[in-house]
């Protein structure tokens, strides 16, 4: 008799297909997180009167969102039709919801950054009578972007989890916590790199909170996943990236606490945190892609949950039936 855990696959061929996504997608996951976190930092700086942090966070967010947007469009099968993302709004599609979040965020941010650039250039932008309008809108626009900042950092977790990719789907309860934490520590890290220590206090605090959230959420997530679905997070390239991600995050947090008030150490810690976040995104992405390649990541968790439901007396909801 065949033992329980073993199964016959169809010539070891995959059951689900990997999404046709290149490295642009994990790059966007990282950049979108940086943008989201920077949006919150910029709003906080705006409300607490930290002009340098506000300017740097806004510019960082703009750079991240610009690069991220390019990465997203480049990864489409038909880049010339990218605007079709906005021809409808579908709550059931995290990609659609995310496209609108990204648009709403970028709209407010662009106004705020326009005002910053105008100020930096000594009011030399050819704005004419629009300058007072821009100055008046700058504050509200920055806060409008901030409203969409956390959603921008978090929706990508739902986008990955809301798929049939075994490892991503199995993270669906906890991945949002990992991603917002990763976004927080990355954006805080970038602010520590760009901003003098005098104004970077909130960034240092956010960095430490982000690392605590990131490490805790990642560990909790792995513990709650089906053990087979969680496997790709530990093995191969993805496993290596995620292990280094945690190490860098912890190193960054220690550096922040111990030497965050000295610029060189603050910069080093910030870079470590940025690296940690990038590795988290690439690691989670790779683990998911890997889980589509071997049918056991599909079959074993599914058979386990089916057997568990049957053992609990639920016999009516199987796709395979005798009648």
């Amino acid at each position: 008799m065949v033992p329980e855990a073993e199964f016959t696959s169809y010539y070891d061929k995959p059951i689900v297909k990997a999404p046709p996504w290149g490295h642009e997608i994990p790059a966007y996951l990282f950049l979108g997180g940086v943008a989201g976190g920077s949006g919150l930092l910029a709003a906080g700086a705006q409300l607490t009167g930290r002009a340098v942090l506000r300017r740097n966070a806004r510019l960082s967010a703009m750079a991240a969102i610009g690069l991220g947007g390019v990465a997203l469009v480049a990864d489409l099968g038909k880049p010339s039709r990218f605007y079709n993302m906005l021809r409808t709004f579908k709550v059931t599609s995290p990609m659609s919801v995310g496209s609108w979040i990204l648009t709403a965020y970028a709209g407010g941010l662009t106004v705020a950054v326009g005002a910053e650039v105008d100020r930096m250039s000594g009011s030399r932008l050819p704005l004419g009578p629009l300058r007072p309008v821009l100055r008046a809108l700058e504050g509200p626009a920055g806060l409008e972007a901030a409203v969409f900042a956390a959603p921008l950092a978090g929706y990508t977790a739902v986008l990955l989890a809301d798929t049939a990719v075994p490892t991503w789907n199995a993270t669906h309860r906890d991945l949002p916590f990992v991603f917002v934490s990763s976004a927080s520590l990355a954006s805080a890290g970038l602010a520590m790199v760009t901003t003098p220590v005098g104004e970077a206090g909130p960034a240092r605090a956010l960095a430490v909170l982000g690392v605590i959230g990131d490490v805790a959420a990642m560990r909790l997530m792995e513990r709650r996943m089906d053990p087979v679905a969680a496997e790709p997070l530990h093995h191969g390239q993805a496993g290596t990236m995620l292990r280094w991600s945690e190490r860098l995050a912890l190193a960054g947090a220690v550096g922040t606490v111990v030497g965050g008030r000295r610029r060189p150490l603050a910069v080093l810690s910030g870079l470590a945190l940025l690296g940690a976040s990038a590795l988290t995104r690439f690691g989670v992405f790779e683990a998911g892609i890997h889980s589509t390649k071997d049918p056991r990541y599909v079959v074993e968790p599914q058979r386990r949950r089916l057997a568990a439901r049957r053992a609990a007396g639920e016999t009516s909801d199987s796709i395979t039936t005798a009648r």
Partner: protein
Amino acid sequence: MGQLSGPTDPTADAAWTPEHTHPRKGFFTDTSICIGCKACEVACKEWNQNPRDGDLELTGMSYDNTVSLGASTWRHVAFVEQGREQIAAARTSGQALVSLGMPTIGAPAPDLSPPETPEFRWLMASDVCKHCTHAGCLDVCPTGALFRTEFGTVVIQPDVCNGCGTCVAGCPFGVVERRSDGTAAPTYREGHRKGEQPPVPKRGVAQKCTLCYDRLVDDETPACAQTCPTTSIKFGDHATMVETARERVAELHAQGMTEARLYGANELDGVGGTGAVFLLLDEPEVYGLPPDPRVCTADLMTMYKRAGVAMAGMVAAAAVAFWRGR
């Protein structure tokens, strides 16, 4: 937004008005009478003008050189060769399914003692898009390129799709694929060319079975069902297909073939039942089908709620950082 899980009428959920609605259409693929001729694959390719996949390599997977469903392959005939032990195992797992949830009182149990176990069997099964009641591909499509037709089927509009690839990840059966140039690199290598590759249409967009939408609107049968010489692929109203499938599996059980089982005929399953129903002679994974698929959007509200909490946490962390971070 229709329901995300559970039994439902997908055409009504998609807000088709009664004057436009037809009875839901579907397939019943009875693999017990499939002879593996692949006429369905050919008819499908011809009708839908789908280009060649790959490089015409021999795979060594029995007579299956198609390998899987994909952007340019909307019917795929699987071939599985089994010996006595595997046949006995299939019969046992089927028997377990028959016994599952059997009423303990009522009609006397039918005689299900297995007939002589043959020494060898060849499983052949024509796979196709399931046209799920709750279609993951359709739910996650951001552009509206994927839509529910008036026949209850799921179709991609190639002129709307921008090739984002989310539907590929959304399908629990691995059906949808984004079409690349359809060739493998070695095609152009000297001495390896096995026929000219025609230009590939609809490149860069997601593609899958349409259940021959263009034929349905003209009241015609889909090409694969039309051509199937053994009626292994049956086409008709979904309700009739499910009923036919139930009669057929009961008939096989009465003959002692307890390995026979239905796949997708249960509206309570993780995808709300499939539009294309199958009769299988072994566990689904033997044919490369998932044993317990669940549409990803069934958990979407949980995901949004968890994400909402996480986002609130992020804002709170930022607030704390500015409050305390001096």
